[in-house]
């Protein structure tokens, strides 16, 4: 009789721990004045795979962004790489290229600055695969093109079908590769 009771108690203890982790991880928390509770349990939740945050589209972006890169090689040749015009790509190709889109989407923010050198190196190699050691001595300029989504006025709404016209450019980084 003792063993089943102990087993039940152990399982219930585990359930309580998992439920606690789910709620502490998922519930919206303020970042100040003290660190949110989810940070305290992340040594465990990140390791076992229970970390989570469900704020997707809670604050939709108010601009569209495309990324491009201008690459100048050590022999003076230039190449350009750019994210595709998403409206012209079929759903199937978008599906297959999902991980590449996610890379771009997750890599152009200020917080992602540390990965830009390796991204620049990859772009230099990928844009000219036939050129040996293409990244050596290349200069890569990564640029973000933006367009603000018009604020919705009650009288004149732009149609969602209207393609965005990118009217602002900002250089994220210029990398001279060793």
């Amino acid at each position: 009789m003792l063993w089943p009771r102990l087993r039940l108690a152990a399982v219930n203890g585990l359930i309580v721990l998992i439920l606690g982790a789910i709620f502490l991880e998922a519930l919206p928390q303020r970042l100040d004045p003290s660190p949110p509770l989810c940070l305290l349990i992340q040594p465990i939740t990140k390791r076992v795979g229970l970390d989570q945050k469900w704020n997707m589209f809670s604050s939709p972006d108010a601009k569209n962004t495309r990324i491009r890169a201008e690459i100048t090689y050590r022999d003076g040749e230039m190449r350009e790489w750019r994210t595709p015009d998403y409206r012209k790509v079929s759903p199937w190709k978008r599906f297959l290229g999902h991980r590449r889109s996610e890379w771009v989407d997750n890599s152009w923010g200020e917080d992602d600055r540390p990965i830009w050198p390796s991204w620049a190196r990859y772009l230099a190699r990928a844009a000219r695969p036939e050129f040996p050691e293409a990244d050596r001595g290349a200069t890569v300029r990564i640029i973000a093109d933006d367009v603000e989504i018009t604020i919705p006025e009650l009288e004149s709404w732009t149609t969602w079908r209207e393609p965005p016209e990118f009217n602002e450019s900002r250089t994220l980084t210029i990398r001279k590769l060793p």
Partner: protein
Amino acid sequence: MIGDQQPQAEYRLIDAWRALARGWNHFFHAPQDTRVCAAVRIGMSLVLLVNLAVLYPDLTTFLTDDGILSTDMARQIGRPYAWSILFWLPSTPQVVETCFWIYVAHTLLLLIGCLSRINAAAALVWFLSFQYRNSQILDGEDTVMRLVLFYLVMMPCGASWSVDALVTRWLVSKRTGKPPGAANHLRPAWGLRLLQIQMAVIFLTAALYKIANEQWFYGTAMYYVARLDDYFGKYPVPDWLFDSPRAVAIITWAVVAGELLIPVFIWFRETRRICLLLAVLFHLGNEWTMHLFLFHWVMLVGWLSFVRPEDFAWLKILRTASPRSLAPADS
């Protein structure tokens, strides 16, 4: 005498505790239909295989030192808690490809239900390893896949519709010397309960985040979402749905209402089916309009945890009403 009885205005702490414990044990440990766990296992394995097939052509690009992100940088991004088997192995295309095929093998074994929970655990280990090797290519569906795999480890996902179940029945029949009887699909499944709670939490917290934002509060959020051209416009939709302020406000508030109400009312017998139907419509509607890879499909796998076998009784009716069964007996 009735007049002499004192109204029970107070409860004893011990009685409340016992009632709570009874309710808890009934909720988490009462037998569940393990075919539901099997459906989640099969659905999750299929989603995982599609995910792996899409990743395969880019293995070298995303997961090796020959690609876009070195192992050292991946460690730095994931510090201090990220871990990966790929951190400890040479970061070459051959090694990563070998790991990939081992991962596929575990997923296939999970699909057919061979040592189901062990293979669910192995698939989770590989999933985390691949995820932390390059966290720059992840999105919401990766979190849901990881969580469903986690709960699969905790539930009797191989007790029905599996090689495990066939082997167990064969062993029992061999031991008892009797032919195998009808399969028993009832077993405690607290892991399934945890998955159900997780699904409700996903919707509820998504709604809580949204209602704190003025674009959702004032009904314009879907205006912005429909104009994000890297997400929206997968298949055709009528213009007026996203170009008219009233329609956009209704859709915006309907999303928040659905995310708030479904996780509450899905627990009740009277409203469970309508909530499931609304969740399916919500995900399929989103899938039609937006490019979100496998997010909605893995969410549907998660919602399967609320399905009961009797929900498919209409399939039996259809089968009995099929042309063959309707044909005259002498034909």
